[in-house]
């Protein structure tokens, strides 16, 4: 197995609030890893540290064999290798759907407009938004926005896609369309790291589930095992409360 990301002893504090305490885990090529855990356990912070939107305090992030926390690494280039999908979509409001998916390709990767549009259309088709290329973000529903945001990230053709609760800001009737797209991406063999509260999705789609609690990885394993046979008491506790709430 080719290892894409290897997180070693990662630490991060905000002031005296230690949010990530010694995190160790890895993602292999083609793997779908879901991160679950209660609110405030540090899931978003972990993802944001991985693409350096937050600066980790210590540890290593090994990407394709190189520690990207070393100072000689080009952060901007590294970030193009990771696609990020945010809870709040964060589409560029001044650009229409097509240009949301081409601006990074053109300005950052230096692709020609034609090539960028061709690639953008390819991924807009994957998420089923190719008919909406002329729409501005404010003219779209939440589910549509999120699908465009996924296409925007895919269009950079990253090695890993990071999703931070991509369906949490959506009305219930739109959650399905986004999860369906993500499931298709998983089937296409994309490497994905997904923070989610959608236990059904985690169970069905992921190769591995990571349960985070208070800044540490409390338990990790195949979905079968985590959901049916959790070892740790706190995993059981968490699953009981979330599954009840649904």
């Amino acid at each position, binding site marked *: 197995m080719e290892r894409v990301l290897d997180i070693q002893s990662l630490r991060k504090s905000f002031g005296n609030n230690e949010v990530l305490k010694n995190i160790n885990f890895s993602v292999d090529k083609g793997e779908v890893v879901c991160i679950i855990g209660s609110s405030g356990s540090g899931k978003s912070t972990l993802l944001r540290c991985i693409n350096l939107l937050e600066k980790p305090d210590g540890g290593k992030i090994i990407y394709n064999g190189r520690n990207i926390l070393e100072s000689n690494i080009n952060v901007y280039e590294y970030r193009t290798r990771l696609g990020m999908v945010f809870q709040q979509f*964060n589409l560029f409001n001044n650009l229409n759907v097509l240009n949301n998916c081409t601006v*990074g390709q053109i300005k950052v990767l230096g692709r020609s407009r034609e090539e960028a549009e061709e690639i953008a259309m390819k991924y807009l088709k994957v998420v089923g938004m190719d008919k909406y290329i002329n729409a501005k973000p404010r003219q779209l529903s939440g589910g549509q926005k999120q699908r465009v945001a996924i296409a925007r990230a895919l269009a950079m053709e990253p090695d890993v896609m990071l999703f931070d609760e991509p369906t949490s800001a959506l009305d219930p009737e739109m959650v399905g369309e986004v999860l369906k797209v993500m499931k298709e991406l998983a089937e296409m063999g994309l490497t994905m790291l997904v923070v989610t509260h959608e236990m059904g999705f985690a169970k069905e789609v992921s190769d591995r589930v990571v349960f985070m609690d208070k800044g540490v990885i409390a338990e990790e394993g195949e979905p079968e095992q985590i959901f049916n046979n959790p070892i740790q008491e706190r995993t059981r506790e968490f699953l009981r409360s979330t599954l009840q709430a649904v």
Partner: protein
Amino acid sequence: MSFQLVKEIFLDNWPMYLRGAGMTIVISVISTILGAIIGLLIGVVRTIPESATRGKRVILKVVNTIFSAYVEYFRGTPMIVQAMVIYYGSALLFDIHLNRFVAAIIIVSINTGAYMAEIVRGGITSIDEGQFEAASAIGMTHFQSMFNIILPQVIRNILPATANEFVINIKDTSVLNVIGVTELFFQTKSITGNNFKFFESYFIASGIYLLMTFTITRILRHFEKRLDGPQNYDLVGNQMQV
């Protein structure tokens, strides 16, 4: 006042009024644009995130302090005083004898820039952090996200405030008569120096000022609407190949 007299004064002096109004417009247009550019540049620099390297941090701090002092000084003092200080100061301290027109542009531009810097800062911070983050996440640098994503939205958002500055500038260029710039107020003063009909002559000037500010406001509002683009979008048919 007789309407007849107003008409006579206008017919006798219209070339002077016209030249004055022209000068007022030219100074206001150029200075508002330059001021907006100053404001945008300062806004972009002021929102640069803190750098990891010490040297850059110090430079940024110094630059930002200078900008703050600039904004405070020009917002906190009357333009009529600034005009005197800059016009006579440049001659006395630096031995630069400014052409009155150039001096006028400089004064109004940097005065407008101080106000625009604050407006732009507000405009940048009003754009949600998420778009910055999304831009960073696809590998854009601070300047790339600024120019491609943030500033186009900021410019749209500050347009009403810029239009407002423009209107203020049309009116406030009248203080430039103290350094002898031949704008509308200065010309009107000259006219009254000959005819001693103060009320009628200034009444005409007020009408011209109003005409200018009213027209400018309408034009800019139309421009804002055009920038917003169409309200609806067309779905692209399946048959269309891109």
